Each structure stands twice: as structure tokens, then as C-alpha cells.
């Protein structure tokens, strides 16, 4: 497989808590992207981090990238019930995205 795993597979937290999801990959990358998928819907792009970047912020999202360890993490701060969804990392190389297995996040009000 060209893509590694995400962990945890599932995460349940209370509103207001932070959620951290981790992603490992195996191939070279141009960039790494995080997507959200609500049940029965398409994937919504959250944030893109290039291979020469180490950290990026967007609103309540913080993404880190460690190319030496081939890993990335997504931190959602001050979570809300509306953040309940599956979150996927995806590496971009040549002309395609390779997705991880995803983390199912449940945020309880």
C-alpha cells in the first residue's frame, strides 16, 4: 500500500475539547492534505501543507508535517458538535491523491 494508517480509527470527545488525529504515509509527497467527510457526503478540503512546510494553521485547525518520519497530525481546537465527521489525510504525488483510512470523530454536546 502506498498509504499508511491514521490513528486513532475512532475518537469521541466532549464539545470544547481538542481532537488530535495522526497520519503516516509511505511515499514521497508534493503536499499533504486533510479532508472532512460528513456521513453520505463528499469530501471537503480543510487544509494543505506543502512538503517544505512544517506547520500550518487555519482557524481552529493546526496541521504539522514531519517528512523525516513521514507523518502528519491534525489538531482541532475547541471542538464543536458540528465537527462530528470522518477526517482523512491524503498525500499528493505525481497526479493523484492517496487517502488514509480515516479517523471517525464524534463530538458530544
Amino acid at each position: 500500500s502506498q498509504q499508511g494508517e491514521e490513528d486513532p480509527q475512532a475518537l469521541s470527545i466532549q464539545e470544547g475539547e481538542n481532537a488530535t488525529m495522526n497520519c503516516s504515509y509511505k511515499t514521497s509527497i508534493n503536499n499533504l492534505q486533510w479532508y472532512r467527510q460528513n456521513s453520505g457526503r463528499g469530501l471537503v478540503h480543510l487544509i494543505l501543507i506543502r512538503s517544505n512546510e512544517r506547520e500550518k494553521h487555519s482557524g481552529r485547525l493546526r496541521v504539522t508535517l514531519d517528512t523525516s518520519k513521514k507523518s502528519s497530525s491534525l489538531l482541532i481546537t475547541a471542538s464543536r458538535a458540528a465537527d462530528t465527521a470522518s477526517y482523512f489525510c491524503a498525500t499528493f504525488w505525481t497526479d493523484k491523491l492517496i487517502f488514509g483510512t480515516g479517523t471517525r470523530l464524534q463530538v458530544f454536546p
Partner: protein
Amino acid sequence: EPEVTQTPSHQVTQMGQEVILRCVPISNHLYFYWYRQILGQKVEFLVSFYNNEISEKSEIFDDQFSVERPDGSNFTLKIRSTKLEDSAMYFCASNKGASNQPQHFGDGTRLSIL
């Protein structure tokens, strides 16, 4: 905000029949993609398309699959003779440029092969 739209939302087809899934990418985008997601599994790349030709395809995208951009707006995925294992959600995506640009996804077509 412009969206990628896919039709139909759900397609039920008999095994062995041909099926065409349709997508209207965002109008100023140049790169087009198809992905699929079998229930409970990860999203898998099928094919990328640029300048009216396939730029990359996966092992899944065998001779039974084809893509076409018949006019300036539609992007279609055809499966010639469907198999039970083709049952999945099929997502179309597009972006302005291949690298360092996010891909914008449609809501998918759920394909059920009976």
C-alpha cells in the same frame, strides 16, 4: 461558492450492464479526477484527466472503465460491463492545477450492482 455536481446521486444497475456516471466540474478548473469508496473502506484513486487525455490511472481502472469530457462542462465515467464488486460511492473531483491546489469533490454517486 462554485461546486462540483454529480448525477445521479444513486444508480442501481444489473450486473453486466453499462453505466455512465456524470460530473460537472467547477468551470475554470483544468484537472479532473474520479475516485471510489467501497462501503467502510478508504477512498481510492481511479483516474486523472487533463487536456482531454488521461494523465494517470490506477490498477483498478482497467479496460472496463473509460472517461470522457464530451463537451466543455461534463466529465463522465463509464463502466462497460459492471460487476458486483463495482458497487461503491464514486466521487468526481476537480482543481485548477494538479499540484499544491486542493481538489474539490462532488457529493458522489452511489452505484449499486445487483
